[in-house]
């Protein structure tokens, strides 16, 4: 991957990372959108779509309640798409995108750690404002807001850059190691496994008692849908 693409991905990673907390919380930072966007940048939209769809449900049930910081799927999703690009020279479709998703997942935890550090660093901005009030002044916090948002941006940009650089190096190595040694059916099995694992993880957040029954009914509904269609 050339340095321009790396910088563009890092910039996009930073912007999308801001959307998660510092900006308006549109869903632009979700893997289902962030990964296809990264796919457009690297020139492999199908890989972007697949990485996004596979990664989307994995941590969706981990919601930011109170001071809890969930894993950073945005950085992980962009890293996965960059990894797909690196692996695509050695592995067939869709295997390269699948392996990239698995390799990129730890970046979600790295992103969470970066997020944690930013929030901790922002404590000082808050204490400064409190001190101004305690001294009998009026705190003007526009600059603090800007610095806080900038930190979220930098955490996203740096995290994405590290993830993309690591997976590009590692991806080529793993691509060469696995090249020609994994059959199509094994990739299909991996695809089913990652999808089911993501669904199982998401189900923990949404399925209360009636939800579990509804979930089973949904699977049956799909089968009937295809029967009727056939």
């Amino acid at each position: 991957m050339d340095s321009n693409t790396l910088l563009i991905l890092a910039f996009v990673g930073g912007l999308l990372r801001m959307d998660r907390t510092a900006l308006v919380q549109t869903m632009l930072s979700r893997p289902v959108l962030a990964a296809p966007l990264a796919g457009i940048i690297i020139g492999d939209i199908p890989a972007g779509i697949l990485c996004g769809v596979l990664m989307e449900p994995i941590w969706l049930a981990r919601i930011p309640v109170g001071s809890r910081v969930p894993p950073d799927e945005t950085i992980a999703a962009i890293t996965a798409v960059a990894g797909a690009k690196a692996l695509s020279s050695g592995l067939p479709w869709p295997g390269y995108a699948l392996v990239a998703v698995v390799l990129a997942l730890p970046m979600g935890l790295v992103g969470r750690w970066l997020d944690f550090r930013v929030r901790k660093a922002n404590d000082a901005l808050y204490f400064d404002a409190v001190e101004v009030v305690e001294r009998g002044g009026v705190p003007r916090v526009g600059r603090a807001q800007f610095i806080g948002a900038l930190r979220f941006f930098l955490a996203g940009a740096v995290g994405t850059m590290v993830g993309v650089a690591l997976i590009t190096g590692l991806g080529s190595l793993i691509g060469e190691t696995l090249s020609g040694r994994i059959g199509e059916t094994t990739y299909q099995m991996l695809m089913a496994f990652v999808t089911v694992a993501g669904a199982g993880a998401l189900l923990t957040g949404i399925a209360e008692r009636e939800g579990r029954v509804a979930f089973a009914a949904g699977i049956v509904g799909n089968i009937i849908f295809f029967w009727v269609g056939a």
Partner: protein
Amino acid sequence: MARPGVKKLFWRSLLLQSAWSFAGMQALGVSWAMEPLLDELYGMEGEKRVESARRYISTLNTHPFIAPAILGCAAKMEENGEGANIEATLAAVMGPFGGVGDAFFWGALKPMVAVAAMSAVMMGHLLTALLFILLWMGVNLGSRIYFFRLGYKRGRDGLAQVMRLSLFALSRRIKAAASALLGFYLGFVVMGLKSSWGSSEWFWATLVLGATFLIYIPVRRGVDPLWFIMAGTLLIFGVELYP
């Protein structure tokens, strides 16, 4: 017609979490959002202005989509000269609003939209997936506007009305619908497995259902799904590479 400070308050409320910190949580965002209105009401400095700044520097954390209701109510109370009561009001509602917002927006609506978008992608309808995301953006901005107007127009009665919206009950229904949709989404995996390996779709459906709940149980107890996926991948590749 709302004064300029009130309009600025709404737009600034969109950046409530720009400097989110563990110590103050959304406090800096609230202080920044209230600045123009407080300057307008009490001037740029002076005892009253300092006192008003003190009201908004306490630690505050609530759901960002419902927070505009609190800010709108605070604006109304400041305008009515009831500033001294604001801190107690903020403290009373931020927790319940956070809980209901997390349950409804993060816990129910967002997964529903995400699963709908994923299913649309699986069926090859990329534009439909994009429409679901646009819908989310509409709900995001629409609910912020709605809650802000409610808080500003009706003051503390508006806050009480937020709690009467039955968002908890609605979130349970949306979660059940999202679960059904997630099952429908996994149905594509079942059909894929059937076309690759044969056998009946009911066999694969049972297997997929069993595997999902096998992962569901430990993840519900706090195990990160990441470890399952890594371990499962190593196992699947290991069997192929070292039979």
